[in-house]
């Protein structure tokens, strides 16, 4: 099995493997196989298209958690200029599962806050696998309040398996840190755009997810409890996670229908990790245009709209 591909992508992996072999052969002798390679390429693209046209909810979850999926730090590099990272909650420490700082998007200063899972093994440990502790959310809050003072719009990037469930987390008030963010974000006097870039898991995601605009990348997921957690509670086994994912409707398609998500940002064929630059380009274009629109609106009417929208969640 090719580990660069997910289980349901293995037929694509086989084709790509063949293409690679042919390329090696091609460079070794004079046989003209360019045509053959082109044919296989086309076949591979068609196959990817057809597989991706009918992903199940569980397959989307797997793409959202793909080990090569671009993370917050990948987007920060590509979306912004003049990036300055800012650290610490001023009370306890600096949480590496949440990155925050000031940058420029199309020359305009913005506050950027995002959850970061970490790529290499060491980095994952450093980032606590993207599971923030209370000081992470409190750092986010500090930066958001700073953004309000200096009239900087806030852009958040959501990608977490959840807030960290540990003793220290509980001792320092993980619940309260999330709750405060929800309250403050509901009235922060600056535009807030939230984008789920990978995995949006429960309160740990929502804690940087309240704003004027909620985007989801096409193959990202957003859920109240992980499909595994849900399966464990209802079916008493994680093996039922695919059913749980389906039942909860964890994809942007369902969440747009429910009126919770405003916009789905299309991903390159086969997922964001297949072409990170293209994904970042698309995301940047959408964020810029949304920011222009929100910045034009008087702040009081923006806040009233934000509040009314929060109040409307779930209304029939």
């Amino acid at each position: 099995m090719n580990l660069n591909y997910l289980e349901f992508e293995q037929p694509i992996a086989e084709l790509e493997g063949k293409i690679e072999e042919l390329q090696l052969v091609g460079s070794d002798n004079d046989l003209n196989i360019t045509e053959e390679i082109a044919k296989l390429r086309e076949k591979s693209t068609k196959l990817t298209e057809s597989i991706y046209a009918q992903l199940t909810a569980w397959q989307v979850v797997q793409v959202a958690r793909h080990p090569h999926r671009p993370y917050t730090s990948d987007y920060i590099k590509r979306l912004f200029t003049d990036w300055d990272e800012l650290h610490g909650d001023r009370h306890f420490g600096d949480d590496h599962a949440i990155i925050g700082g000031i940058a420029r998007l199309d020359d305009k200063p913005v506050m950027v806050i995002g959850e970061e899972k970490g790529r290499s093994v060491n980095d994952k440990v450093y980032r606590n696998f993207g599971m923030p502790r209370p000081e992470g959310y409190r750092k986010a809050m500090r930066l958001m309040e700073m953004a309000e003072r200096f009239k900087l719009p806030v852009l958040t990037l959501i990608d977490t398996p959840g807030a960290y469930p540990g003793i220290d987390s509980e001792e320092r008030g993980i619940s309260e840190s999330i709750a405060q963010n929800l309250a403050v974000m509901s009235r922060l006097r600056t535009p807030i755009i939230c984008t789920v870039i990978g995995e949006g898991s429960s309160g740990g995601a929502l804690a940087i997810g309240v704003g004027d605009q909620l985007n989801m990348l096409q193959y990202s997921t957003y859920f109240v409890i992980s499909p595994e957690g849900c399966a464990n509670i209802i079916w008493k086994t994680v093996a039922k996670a695919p059913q749980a994912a389906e039942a909860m409707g964890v994809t942007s398609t369902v969440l747009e229908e429910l009126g919770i998500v405003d916009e789905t940002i299309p991903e390159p064929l086969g997922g964001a990790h297949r072409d990170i630059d293209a994904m970042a380009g698309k995301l940047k274009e959408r964020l810029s245009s949304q920011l222009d629109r929100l910045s034009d609106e008087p702040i009081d009417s923006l806040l009233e709209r934000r509040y009314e929208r929060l109040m409307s969640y779930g209304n029939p």
Partner: protein
Amino acid sequence: MSWLEKIVPSMARSEVKRSSKVPEGLWKKCPKCQAVLYRPELERNLDVCPKCDHHMRIGARTRLNLFLDEGNRQELATDVEPIDRLKFRDVKKYKDRLSTAQKSTGEKDALVAMKGELKGMPVVAVAFEFAFHGGSMGYVVGERFARAAKLALEEDIPMVCFSATGGARMQEALISLMQMAKTSAVIERLKMQGTPYISIMTDPVYGGVSASLALLGDINAAEPNARAGFAGPNIIEQTIRQKLPKGFQRSEFLLDKGAIDLIIHRRDMRDTIARLLAKLTRREAV
């Protein structure tokens, strides 16, 4: 089952089983100290064990009955009813789970909201019904809470919430997650206006409710020995692979860690909240 049990007639078998339990009705066993308690006496004691002071769970209506003055009560947002937007289905249909819970509790969902008086002071009070689907917060809980809070906002009268819940309701998926944002936003408006909101956590309070409305009070309180936290003890133990310290996530732990202002015994609930609210609203001592 042994061969002996197998040949005993089934009637007799069930007799044997039942004798190990306390008979239903007049007697109740304290889940903490195992004392067998006489129900009428237990009720007079507000469902607090007279032997060990354990605060037993009580229903939302009983809770509000104990808390509010007798007259001038008005139930709020009764027209808000559960909707199965996702047509959620696991081993059972969510719709069926809802009707089972409705039949067994007599409630439409897991929150009861009322406007009433506390020692003559107008208050809005809401209480979670833990027996309804684990007191989980879905659309109805969030919406009833928000409507009650809006009334408190409009009339500038204090709001009090008694929570008892396992957290967000999975069967309503992201709609239930968004109730966290909804309730937090309306509480923030109370805060900005200077209308008091007091949150009292009763056993247990977890997940999405603890990470929103339960910890956003001007004053956060808890009943003695109530469990409250973000992640359940099992999840934490699985994650960190070690046993949790004794008393972890109990009210006394929360007080020690600075998460709550005070612990209030059930018998002192009315007096304490009235005293606090009278001061916060600059009234004369009650």
